[in-house]
Structure formats: C-alpha cells, structure tokens
C-alpha cells in the first residue's frame, strides 16, 4: 500500500517541509513495507528532490482552481488521490489547516505535531509535542486509517534515495470547492530565510536598546546563512516585524542553533525556542534566566561581543 504525502510547495518549488514529510513517511514505510507516494500541487520543481528522500512515486496535479490555497479544496485533492491507510503532511500553516478536514473526509484518526519516527507501526505508536515543548506525549492509533502531521525541524531530513516515477494526476476540483476565497496575497521578498525552516536563527531583544542597532544582528545572520528572530517586547513596540516574534504567542521554532542576544529568557520566550538543539545566550546580566536554559553563554556587553563574534565567524566561514 502507499503512504500518501502532501509535498508542500511555494511558488512551484518544494519547501523543506515537503522533504521532512517524505522522510517521515519513509520512516514508517521502512517498518510497514509500504511505498511512499507524494502529491505535488502546481509544482515546477524536479521530482528528483523527492526521490532523494524516499518517494517512490510523485503524483503531479496541475489545476487553476488550486492556484490559491483553500483548506477544503486541497483536502479534497488529497482525499481523492489517497488509496491506503496513512497520509502524512508537514505541520506548516497550510498542512496543519488541511489535516483536520482531510481526516474527516477519509474517516481517519488525526495525530498532529509528531516529533520522531514511530517506535511501532502496528499499532502506530509515536511521540508528539506537548506542553509547548516541556513534555513529550506518546500516542497510539489502535487501528484504521490515520492522518499525521509532522512538526517542522523536529524529525528532520533523512536521505533515502529510491528510483521513483512521476505521474500526472487529474482531480475533480473546481473554484466552488473553496468555501473561503483568497482575494489578495502579499509576499515579502522571498530571499529571506523562512524562520520556521531555518537551521540557524539569530535573535535579539530589548538589550539592543533600539531598532537602529540591529545591523550587527543581521550581519551575524548573513554570515551564518541564518534567519532573524526577536523577543515579544521588541515586536510589540515595532522595533522588529511581528513575523520575527518567537515565543508562546509568536512562532515556535526548533533550529539546530539559536543565538539569543540581549534577551532575558522569560518563560513565554522559552516556550517558543526550547526545542532548539543548541542555545547560545549573550547577555550583560549574569542573572538573566536564559542562562539556565542555554548550552553556551557569554556574559557581557552585546555591543562589544557581537562585533567580535561576527569577526570570528567571518574568519571561520573563510
């Protein structure tokens, strides 16, 4: 049987989240003996990038009615192309929106925000995020079809190259399937790295003293090929855009490396970054709570330390 994967794309290109979803499906397939079929909607990217992560088949759907996102229309497409017991989606804004509708359309059990490969596939037993990263919940699906969403930057990318095939798939979806219509899309410049997908994030807060001082933070991000983030207070006073706010009511991220400059480490902030693999804290206050949740720390004036650190990072990067 085939595990169906929603290979999410943006402007015709696969997102990293699509590769994570395929990798996850492959981790199930390796135990269950299933194959992996990815669904690509209005994608111009080569399917080779999906075969690399274990997709045996790629179903390509091209349809004008799907040009804009619609939870109901996209769920309908996946339900129509689905043939097996398991569907995997990334837990992105779109993936998480499609999943519940898709679970109902396919009479499946919905499991969201999985963070690791299943320990068992029959019954399906796996860990998921809980308590905003302060807990891990192990669940079991006792039987029947399932729709699974995979947390970004949790399971990761696992290369498992197979020789896959591509097929065109037609679906019976029309404009009428979108219950809510998109009237406008505003996209910021797409050369910025997606904060939820970034492997490295450089973040700063009130310790920066003013928005005009962010140059050295952006420079560090440039050197490292990182995304930039910020704490809630500086987003609230518009020093940084809302989209950069990470925390309890902002974005939750899990990069390989999170560097926090001039952020004290309030619990609400930690809730958004506690799943980062490595945390570096730079703060002038030795009592800053963030040091208790950090792997590495430097106590001192950010305005002295960051330029020196940028210098060393530039040397390191060569």
């Amino acid at each position: 049987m085939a595990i169906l994967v929603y290979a999410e794309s943006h402007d015709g290109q696969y997102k990293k989240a699509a590769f994570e979803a395929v990798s996850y499906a492959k981790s199930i397939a390796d135990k269950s003996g299933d194959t992996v079929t990815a669904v690509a909607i209005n994608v111009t990217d080569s399917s080779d990038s999906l075969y690399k992560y274990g997709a045996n088949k790629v179903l390509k759907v091209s349809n004008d009615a799907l040009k804009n996102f619609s939870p109901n229309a996209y769920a309908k497409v996946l339900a129509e192309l689905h043939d097996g017991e398991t569907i995997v989606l990334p837990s992105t804004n779109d993936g998480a929106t499609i999943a519940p509708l898709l679970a109902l359309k396919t009479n499946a059990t919905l499991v969201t925000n999985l963070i690791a490969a299943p320990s068992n596939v029959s019954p399906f037993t796996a860990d998921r995020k809980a308590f905003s990263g302060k807990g891990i919940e192990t669940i079991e699906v006792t039987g029947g079809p399932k729709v699974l969403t995979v947390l970004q930057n949790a399971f990761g990318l696992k290369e498992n190259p197979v020789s896959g095939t591509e097929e065109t798939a037609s679906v019976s979806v029309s404009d009428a399937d979108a219950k809510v219509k998109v009237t406008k899309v505003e996209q910021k410049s797409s050369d910025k790295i997606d904060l939820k997908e970034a492997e490295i994030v450089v973040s700063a807060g009130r310790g920066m003293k003013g928005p005009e001082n962010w140059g050295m933070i952006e420079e560090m991000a440039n050197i490292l090929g990182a995304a930039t983030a910020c704490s809630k207070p500086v987003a609230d006073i518009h020093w940084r855009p809302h989209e950069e706010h990470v925390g309890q009511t902002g974005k939750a991220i899990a990069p390989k490396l999170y560097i926090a400059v001039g952020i004290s480490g309030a619990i609400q902030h930690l809730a958004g970054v506690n799943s980062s693999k490595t945390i570096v804290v730079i703060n002038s206050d030795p009592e800053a709570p963030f040091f208790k949740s950090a792997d590495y720390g430097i106590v001192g004036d950010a305005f002295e330390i960051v330029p020196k650190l940028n210098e060393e990072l530039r040397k390191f990067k060569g």
Partner: protein
Amino acid sequence: MKVLVCISSVPDTTAKINFTGDGKEFDKNGVQFVINPHDEFSLTRAVQLQETQGAKITVITVGDASVEPVMRKALAIGADDAIRVNADARDHFFVATQIAKVAKEGGYDLILTGKESIDYNGGAVPGLVAGLLDYGFINGCVGLTVNGTSVEAVREIDGGKETLSGEFPLVIAGQKGLVEETELRIPNMRGIMAARTKPLNVVEAEQTESKLKVVGYVKPPSRGNVTLIDKDNVAELVRLLHEEAKVI
C-alpha cells in the same frame, strides 16, 4: 450575529510541568489555570464585535467543573453566556464533536477559537469543527472584519499575508495579531460582578469513538549546565559550536 467563542482552560505558562507517577497524566497539583493565550485574542475580538455590532457572545468549554473559574473570567471579560460540556476534553475529535453540536443547534454565525492550546498543542479542534459542520475555515487569523454576513479576514502565511473573503457561517482560529496585545481585555470589577449572574449552562456530552490512545508522558531531557565563555575569548565559542555542538 451570534458568536461562539471556544476556550480552553490551560496551565499558566509559568507552571512547572510534571506528570503523575505512572506518567499517564499531567499533574495538576498546585497549577494555576488560565484562558489559553491564543483564545484570548479571539475572545477580545468577539467583545469588540459585541460593542460595535451588537454581537451576542457565548463561550463554550469542554471540561469538568474545575474549568468554570476560567469560564467565569471569560464572562467577566464580556461574553453574554456560557456553556460547559461536562466531560474530560479527552481527544480533539471528541471535543470538536461537542462544539459542532452546540454550534449547529445554536445557529451560531461565527465560531472563534484559538489556533492551538498551549498544553496539548493539538491545533486540531478548529479544523475538525469546520469539517464536521461543513463550514468555511480560516486558520491562523490575524485580522477580521465583519460586514453583515460577509467577512474579510487576514491569514498569516509563510513570509507574508493572505486576505480572504467568506460568508457566514465560518470557523475562525485566531492568534496574536487578531487584536493587538495591548487591546486584550481583562476583567474589571463591574465585569466580575456581572459574571456571577450570567448564565453558565452545563450540558452532557455526546459519545464518540476514538482510536487515539495516550500511552504516557515524559519530560524532555534537560539541557545540563551552561558552558560560559569569557567575553574576551569569543573564538572559543566558535570552536565549541563547530567541534563540540557541531552546529556550524
């Protein structure tokens, strides 16, 4: 218009998270419960619609009697009445089924929720309610205007924003941005007094079948002590990140 605001009673963000000895349940001892932070944005937006357009607001929570203080807080903030479905909020399909039933029977135009609860991080209930009712669904909503029975909403997408238009009835999952943090309503004395006599009706739950079982909980491994690096030796940090942490 009739608005149904779905709220969860969740452990306060600063609560210490522990599990019972057998790891089967969250340990509620000594924990302070609050309205789920994402739900607060939706609740405030509803109160604004009440003030500007005369919307009637019902709040709904699935839970035992211990969730009533949180519901009274929502009434104090401005909801007109409340419905508690008397059951453990066991799994998201169960919770969504209860909400969908109340929403349909009550003829609500707008069902507002938070996009995810900070305890179980399901993010599933809003979409399941929409699917069960076959209503339009807007997730991650950061802006909402109502004109009669039409709605214009803004949804956050990767690297930007999408503007949407829809018609009642709709399910909308809100988050920070739906209203500004500074606009969030808190109960005042008058609200608290009024909340005491506003209706809070308890209804029984409809049974559902579930194939989703919770096996148990553990805490993630702790990070260990921080390695402090001298500010005059930042090269050491670069070395550690490369050789020890292997992240650069």
